């Protein structure tokens, strides 16, 4: 059972950091706001990671990092690269950045599996859909301002967290819970600041963290790939909701959350079916 300290550090602290920054940067130019909001998300994920696993570890002569231990470094590098790409050009942001970040996630996550032979089949099977989902989700983030997308992604990531918990990935589930807390706080901040956007830097940080967590849950634990694909679909499902920009905020939020919820629930069902039985 999680303790009060786990809940405070793993959920509340990330939510506070993201919520406060999400509201505070309302007057900043969009690229600065994007960088600062992304930094808040990265910090929130970092706090959630520390709550679960302790301080991040550097690889060394006596230490090979597990895939999950690369997560804080992946998040930090994603924030740096996304901020640079956002400042450079739309081409860099839309096409170069996802390619580089997917390579980063795959390379670090599979670092312990590169010998005796590189698992090219597995890398392409995972990397291809990951890249497609990333592009689609990032494009959605560019088009959607306000609380609706953070609220929808809170649903998707929360479902992923529960699915991971069902399939022997307690650590992944707890960290994903921190990511969901960040998104939930940004959704609340979006009501106060309708111009809040996940575009570019915040989306890149969230997607990098989710990609790393998904590989940990599916490749190194028991989450079925079908559930992972449905969570990816849940992230982009709000793009299928054809509602005009004149729609009021609350109905927009409800519609987007509903569209995200349907594939998320199916993902949970698959995870439940695959969950190993208790032996206790």
């Amino acid at each position, binding site marked *: 059972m999680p303790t009060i300290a786990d809940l405070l550090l793993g959920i509340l602290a990330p939510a506070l950091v993201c919520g406060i920054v999400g509201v505070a940067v309302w007057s900043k130019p969009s690229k600065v706001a994007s960088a600062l909001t992304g930094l808040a998300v990265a910090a929130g994920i970092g706090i959630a990671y520390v709550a679960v696993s302790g301080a991040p570890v550097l690889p060394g002569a006596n230490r*090979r990092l597990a895939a999950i231990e690369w997560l804080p470094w992946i998040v930090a590098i994603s924030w740096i690269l996304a901020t640079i790409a956002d400042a450079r050009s739309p081409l860099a942001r839309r096409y170069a950045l996802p390619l580089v970040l997917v390579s980063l996630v795959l390379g670090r996550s599979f*670092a312990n599996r590169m010998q005796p032979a590189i698992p090219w089949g597995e890398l392409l099977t995972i990397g291809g859909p990951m890249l497609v989902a990333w592009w689609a989700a990032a494009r959605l983030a560019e088009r959607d301002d306000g609380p609706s997308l953070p609220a929808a992604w809170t649903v998707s990531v929360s479902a992923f967290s529960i699915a991971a918990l069902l399939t022997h990935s307690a*650590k992944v589930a707890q960290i994903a819970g921190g990511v969901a807390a960040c998104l939930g706080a940004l959704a609340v901040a979006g009501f106060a600041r309708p111009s809040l956007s996940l575009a570019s830097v915040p989306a890149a940080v969230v997607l990098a963290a989710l990609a790393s967590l998904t590989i940990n849950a599916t490749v*190194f634990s028991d989450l079925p790939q079908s559930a992972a694909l449905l969570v990816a679909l849940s992230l982009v499902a709000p793009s299928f909701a054809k509602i005009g920009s004149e729609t009021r905020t609350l109905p927009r939020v409800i519609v987007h959350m509903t569209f995200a919820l349907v594939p998320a629930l199916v993902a949970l069902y698959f995870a439940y079916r695959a969950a190993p039985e208790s032996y206790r």
Partner: protein
Amino acid sequence: MSPIRIFLATGAIAGVIFASSFASPAVVVRPVAADAYKIDAVHSSVVFKAKHQNVSWGFGRFNDISGTITYDEAKPESSKVDLTIKTESVDTANGKRDGHLKSPDFFDAKQFPTATFVSKSVKSKDKKLAVTGDLTIRGVTKSITIDVEVTGVAKDGQGGELAGFYTEFTIQRTDFGVNYGQGGIGTDVTLMIGIEAAK
């Protein structure tokens, strides 16, 4: 920046990031002396125990072990041990529990398929050997010193030679990143290793 330059820069960065994964080899090949004993897995055992709910001992074993031992009765300080345990072979007589032990909550066998012990130095201590070496579990390497009893050396009747060794020692599983379930499963894990090796 032109699209072509962005494309080339992207490819270069992605390639460097990806290729850095190959920089730290997961498998280290260690040289084996020609007169080393080879561990006989059929007649060797690696058994462990840990407390459950602070009430009873739970036992398990690893069924797939391999390695080599260099041992000279006349010069025990020149001995060497190289033991490899396949973490996928963990066996606690309960398939569901074994599946949990192989998961990232415990041994993370898909990422770390082996646990190893490689000796660095050996000293004679009373009638035993004090073996100092690197124990690696779940990617974490710690230097430990264990007391090893030489249980026997004999000819096997077919022109070869057998040597037997036994050791028992306790580690803190949290030192090796195995942190799950500390409330219900003790952090002290005792290993009991009986080896028969042949050359």
